[in-house]
């Protein structure tokens, strides 16, 4: 053994970790927001669409879910610009990737939620003369949201952790900051202990916040 813990160098470079954490959160929030729009739109389209559209949406979902995120990150950052005349920064590239990636996971969450909305509620909506759009906005979506919130929270937190993959294209988020300190100070155990704690605490704060939202929306089934 003979490894003496010394956190001094970690605190001296703590801005790398703190700034990294903020960037991780920023990447997660933007990607999840875009992913939610993609997921919600495709899920609503899926449940009322014909076979062809369903097959295309299912293909998107299955493809993304069965390929490693790191490969998708490489593909968008190093691959796409070789065939399309586009230039984008590493953070933009990662947000693009994680949005499409989270969209695929969220389609599944929203779709199963929409399908779990009791038929009787929709019939009741029709009986009191709501238009299809009103039935969607006032009946289907609120009920779906209540059903999916627990699964949604888990997906959000999982996507927050996935931002660590951005470090492979040198986006200076939390994992990248940890590696920087690792390589420059060799306080290996200390930096990963602190980083672990930062991911855990942030994850639990997010979980706690999302549970509060769940409780707020949890009404009689």
């Amino acid at each position, binding site marked *: 053994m003979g*490894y003496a813990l010394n956190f001094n160098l970690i605190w001296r470079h703590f801005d790398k970790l703190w700034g990294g954490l903020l960037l991780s959160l920023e990447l997660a929030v933007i990607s999840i927001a875009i992913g939610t729009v993609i997921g919600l739109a495709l899920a609503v389209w899926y449940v009322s669409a014909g076979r062809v559209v369903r097959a295309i949406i299912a293909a998107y979902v*299955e493809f993304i879910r069965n*390929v490693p995120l*790191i490969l998708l990150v*490489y593909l968008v950052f190093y*691959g796409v610009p070789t065939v399309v005349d586009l230039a984008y920064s590493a953070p933009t590239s990662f947000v693009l990737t994680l949005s499409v990636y989270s969209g695929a996971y969220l389609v599944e969450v929203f779709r199963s939620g929409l399908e779990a909305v009791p038929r009787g509620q929709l019939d009741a909506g029709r009986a009191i003369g709501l238009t299809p759009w009103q039935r969607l906005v006032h009946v289907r979506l609120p009920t779906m949201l209540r059903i999916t919130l627990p699964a949604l929270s888990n997906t959000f937190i999982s996507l927050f*952790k*996935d931002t660590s993959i951005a470090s492979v294209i040198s986006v200076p988020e939390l994992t990248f900051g*940890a590696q920087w300190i690792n390589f420059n100070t060799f306080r290996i155990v200390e930096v990963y202990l602190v980083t672990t704690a930062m991911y*855990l605490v942030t994850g639990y704060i997010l979980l706690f916040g999302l549970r509060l939202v769940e409780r707020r929306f949890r009404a009689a089934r």
Partner: protein
Amino acid sequence: MASQILYALPFLAKGFALTLWVSFLVVTLSLVAGVLLGVGLVYGPAPLRWAVRIFSDTIRGIPILVLMFFVYYGLPAIGLHLPSFWAAVLALTLFKTAQVIEYLRGAVASIPKGQSEAAMAIGLTFRQRLTSVIFPQAFRRFLPPWINGVTDAVKGSALVSLLGITDLMQAINQVIGRTYEAMPLYILGALIYFAVNYALSLASRRLERRFAFIRE
């Protein structure tokens, strides 16, 4: 372009074999460790339960990448020198073990309490209760999510490329380094990962449907 990729195929196949080997090791080792710790979490004494709970929640609370760097760079720092291949397998196994623990806990918790009480009433020992009553039933709930979770091991194995291990992901990056054919090679790689994982998730779904009769 096509000839260059054709030329690289044996190299990619070797990388793919390593991806499968890493995934196999991780899945097997984590199954053993996860079932043992999972039983500890459900039936063990309080200190063991807390220890397993903290282990599982910590591992599942951090990105696999951080766990992998921690194990890879951290072990030598405290005097444990593992070859990078085994450090990577260890890190991925820790991550997967936490998952298996939760699958097992969920499967056992889904068996009605009356089953355990009935087994106790007819005088079965603790071990008999587990092996003849609880596990045969819990197995059917454990298997589908577990097989589906094998895809996480295959996908997670792509991260070992960051430790200089030539798995499929790293092989693809190396071939791109020589040929500059980024797009075709990444798409080829994605299709290979997709084929393996999609087959696994289909198997999981089929099993789930087959065992659906016990879902009340």
